[in-house]
């Protein structure tokens, strides 16, 4: 029997986010709020990747991000690459960069932090970008890469 191959069709205009670690796909969806938009979106996950082992990819029709918005995913997908597509052609390539400050998105890992008790938008200073370390503006404790939980 002939192997059936699912072809993920190319998009005419929009953004392709590639090199997302497979286990971060749903976090990326949540950070970018993709579960709340009406555009056409194609997801692929657990795809083979030489760099990441297993990667995920997201193709978004007619969606373009501001740098400050897309950089938020650097917390969970530091190696993500963006292709900006216009009229079926890649017109721009971008990499993500961890911002200096994170507002919202991440839950403070300190159970004794006031942000885990009252309704407060979390705020962090990024004290290390390579191995991400976030210093809570409120309790002054560090939330590290392995303990990042997306709100």
């Amino acid at each position: 029997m002939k192997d059936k191959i699912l072809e993920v069709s190319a998009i005419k205009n929009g953004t392709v986010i590639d090199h997302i670690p497979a286990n971060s796909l749903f976090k990326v969806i949540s950070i970018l709020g993709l579960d709340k938009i009406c555009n056409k979106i194609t997801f692929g996950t657990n795809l083979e990747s030489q760099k990441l082992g297993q990667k995920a990819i997201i193709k978004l029709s007619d969606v373009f991000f501001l740098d400050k918005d897309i950089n938020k995913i650097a917390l969970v997908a530091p190696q993500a690459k963006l292709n900006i597509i216009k009229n079926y052609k890649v017109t721009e390539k971008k990499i993500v960069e961890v911002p200096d400050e994170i507002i919202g998105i991440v839950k403070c890992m300190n159970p004794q932090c006031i942000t885990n008790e009252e309704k407060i938008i979390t705020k962090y200073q990024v004290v290390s970008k390579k191995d991400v370390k976030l210093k809570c503006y409120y309790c002054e404790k560090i939330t590290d890469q392995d303990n990042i939980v997306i709100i």
Partner: protein
Amino acid sequence: MKGKSLVSINDYTKEEYIKILDLAEIFENKPVQNLLQGKVIASLFFEPSTRTRLSFDSAVNKLGGKVIGFSDTHSSSITKGETLYDTIRIVSNYCDLIVMRHPLEGSARYASEITSVPVINAGDGANQHPTQTLLDLYSIRKTQGTLDNLNIFMVGDLKYGRTVHSLLMAMSKFDTTFNFISPDELKLPEGYKLFLENQGLKYYEHKDFTDIISKADIIYMTRVQKERFSDPIEYERTKNAYVLKNEFLASTKENMRVLHPLPRVNEIEKEVDLNPKAYYFTQALNGVFIRQAIITSILGLI
């Protein structure tokens, strides 16, 4: 400093530390004044404390101000489920300044964001207690005549103790040499050692009291708490290794002083209290002058 909250010891610069210490010296010479007449200070203790609360009360009363507030949450509407946000918003209407202690970390920073009156953090969980640190600095300067180039020994629980962490951050601005004496389980966290290395400051770690303490200008004692140990047998083994006795002090410098943020349990033998090198009770008294200095400078009265 006027109108500015004091939440973390890092909110103040070295020059601001000095300014507060100089002011405290003036209050030590003249603790009773009428500077706070007509001012209302809210003292909100969401968690019980004796020394800190009474020391603030005493500081305000001696300057002719009034204190309102609560000393535990049983007598307030927090028991009815009121949020910190609501409590702070309401209390702000009644006072010129808020002094607060709260068991959750970051609570004072949050409070300072939601109110127009300045907030003094009197302890937020294991995080910060800046007025304690300033009174420690005051005690060190008063007994040594300077804050520069001293050799500070910190003893006991260096892992969780917020007072040692804040004091370390503050003293790092004065070319201090640090010596840390603690059991393995309660060693100073790596982050603080890295900080000292980045500042180019020297530090040494020890497991026991030895002759090394003859180099000390200040010995800063802390409690070794049972609940910090994962292994109760390990606690039993170590608890007596960090008890300060008179015999240890014999070889120390004449001018060396022993500090302790208090309360103490058994980590300083009672016999040490009468030793002229014991300073912890006077240290607590200095807290009143430091708090007078902080309150009056934040309110812009001096």
